[in-house]
């Protein structure tokens, strides 16, 4: 098949055949990997069933640490979900050219990580079915309605809004690619894609709506994206009784941390996509380079917030707060976790990203992005648990919290679950937006400046009306 046309652009036929290689055919590794993941996921569901039967006693949660690994993992996955809108919306609005192969993967990651995050409060609640009384606006026999003053109520509202918005955003951007699949399938699959493509033909009106609508939805999703992790942070920040939680800086601190962890997860995912499906022509080293530059800025801002949070905590010279920070940073085992958190969250990856050789090395980017997310998970653990575990006055029981193997497995399960969902998605829908990729080829060219040939990207501008 002809890879490039006479203007040295990737041909649309080649783009279709390569980017649909995981959808129209099945990679050899797909079935074994899905089977293994399915096995672990099923075990996770069984363990969840056992926990429902025997109660939260199977976990390490006990007085005074009632919020442990489950809530940490909930915050972690909400953080990962911030990748989608950060990448897709901001880069779409700013017309950043390198966004094209990244956006779809980021949006899917948002949806599946949010859906997984929503599961964790259910698991954490123990009596999962009682969530209904907490969330659904109903009038019970006693006339009691859910308490809107609690962030624990605002939180699911914000996450549901974000999840619904992200799913619709993804669907709108998928329509042109569904038409490509409709044109390339037969039988049942053709019928399925025909329904989903809604009769798309690619006329100028439809393309205009795709472009304008994409920017409009991006603009609407951005404020939601900021609000979601702010509200998650208020789950902790409005609790006055726990040292380490009651901080005014939490909302922006959580948002920037979420972006750090989410964009790193996108890097991990892009490396896997490049290796798994062989999309070397589309997910290129320069995309990793751009993401690493973005991450360097985000990570440094996040580090600033980390130190500000510590500074504000000790500046007031409040004895319990200082005691907590001393425990968090200097006492074993928290000090070890704190050290690993700082090393993996910033000290190791960011200096690496300062070198172009690292930024364009996919294996190094993959491992450094994994490091970031180890650090970011620990950050949430260190925010949530030590404040509860420290001995407080008038508390008659206290002890360090040790998560049970049950909780560790459910954490592992969540990674298997998200990966499984992504792999299942990849068999039905393309992971890289085809039309965006093709659009980039239409708008790209090269020009000669002196003796150098420079690649260029054209951008459509609105014409200004003359007086």
């Amino acid at each position, binding site marked *: 098949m002809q890879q490039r046309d006479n203007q040295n652009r990737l041909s649309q036929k080649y783009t279709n055949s390569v980017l649909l290689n995981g959808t129209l055919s099945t990679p050899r590794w797909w079935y074994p990997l899905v089977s293994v993941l399915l096995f672990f996921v099923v075990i996770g569901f069984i363990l969840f069933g056992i926990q429902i039967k025997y109660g939260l006693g199977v976990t390490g949660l006990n007085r005074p640490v009632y919020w442990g690994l489950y809530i940490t993992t909930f915050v972690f996955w909400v953080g990962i979900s911030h990748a989608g809108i950060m990448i897709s919306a901001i880069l779409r609005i700013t017309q950043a050219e390198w966004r094209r192969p990244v956006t779809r993967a980021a949006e899917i990651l948002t949806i599946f990580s949010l859906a997984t995050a929503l599961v964790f409060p259910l698991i954490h609640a123990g009596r999962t079915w009682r969530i209904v009384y907490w969330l659904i606006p109903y009038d019970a026999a006693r006339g009691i309605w859910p308490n*809107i003053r609690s962030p624990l109520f605002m939180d699911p509202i914000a996450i549901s809004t974000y999840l619904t918005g992200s799913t619709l955003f993804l669907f709108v951007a998928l329509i042109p690619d569904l038409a490509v699949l409709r044109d390339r399938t037969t039988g049942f699959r053709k019928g399925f894609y025909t329904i989903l493509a809604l009769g798309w033909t690619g006329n100028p009106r439809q393309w205009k709506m795709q472009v304008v609508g994409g920017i409009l939805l991006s603009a609407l999703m951005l404020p*939601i994206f900021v609000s979601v992790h702010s509200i998650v942070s208020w789950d902790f920040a409005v609790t006055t009784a726990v040292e380490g939680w009651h901080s005014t800086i939490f909302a922006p601190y959580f948002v920037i941390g979420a972006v750090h962890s989410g964009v790193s997860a996108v890097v991990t995912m892009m490396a896997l996509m490049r290796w798994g499906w062989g999309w070397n022509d589309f997910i290129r080293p320069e995309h990793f380079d751009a993401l690493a530059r973005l991450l360097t800025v985000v990570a440094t801002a996040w580090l600033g917030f980390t130190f500000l949070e510590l500074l504000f905590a000790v500046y007031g010279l409040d004895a319990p707060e200082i005691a907590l920070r001393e425990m968090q940073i200097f006492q074993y085992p928290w000090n070890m976790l704190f050290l690993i958190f700082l090393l993996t969250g910033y000290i190791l990856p960011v200096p690496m990203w300062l070198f172009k050789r690292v930024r364009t090395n996919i294996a190094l980017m993959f491992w450094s992005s994994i490091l970031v997310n180890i650090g970011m998970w620990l950050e949430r653990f260190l925010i949530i648990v030590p404040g509860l575990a420290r001995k407080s006055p008038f508390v008659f029981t206290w002890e360090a919290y040790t998560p049970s193997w049950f909780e560790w497995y459910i954490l592992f399960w969540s990674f298997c679950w998200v990966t499984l969902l992504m792999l299942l998605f990849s068999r039905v829908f393309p992971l890289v937006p085809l039309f965006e990729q093709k659009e980039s080829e239409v708008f790209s060219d090269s020009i000669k400046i002196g003796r150098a040939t420079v690649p260029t990207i054209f951008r459509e501008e609105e014409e200004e009306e003359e007086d």
Partner: protein
Amino acid sequence: MSKSILGLFLDPNHAADAMDGLKESGFERGTFDVLTGTPYPEGAFGEYVPQHRLFRFPAFGAIIGLTVSLFLTTATQLAYPLITGGKPILSIFAMLIIMYEMTMLSAVIFSVIGIIFESRLPNIKPGIYDPRITEGYIGVVITVEDEDLNKAQKVIENSGSEEIKVV
């Protein structure tokens, strides 16, 4: 009886020539259109792009979301008027957060409805089409009466089309 012609082009310049030719031959601008597998710069084919009213949809959605959320947050608190710590029954700050989320949610939902409506989707009878359009061919499509069929076909052929379909 009317018929549809679809001319397939590989070169965007030839497709633009066909569109110009159809215009010059006196066909009304609403009767012919261009189909592509990727967005081209607006006006690349001299095509007619009608005005849209997309921005009204999120505004309308936001008003609905705001109204519903104001009612929901107010009514649920008034339904159980238990005074806590001497504070007012209606907690304005908490209400604002819920109202904000519901307003945005409704605006997003209505925007998506707007995008689909303004794209004239779902299009149950898409008319003449060729799957090669999604692999790089550019389609120029026109619906004409029988007596104009030859004229339109000739314009498309002379512009350098790779293939012509008539249905």
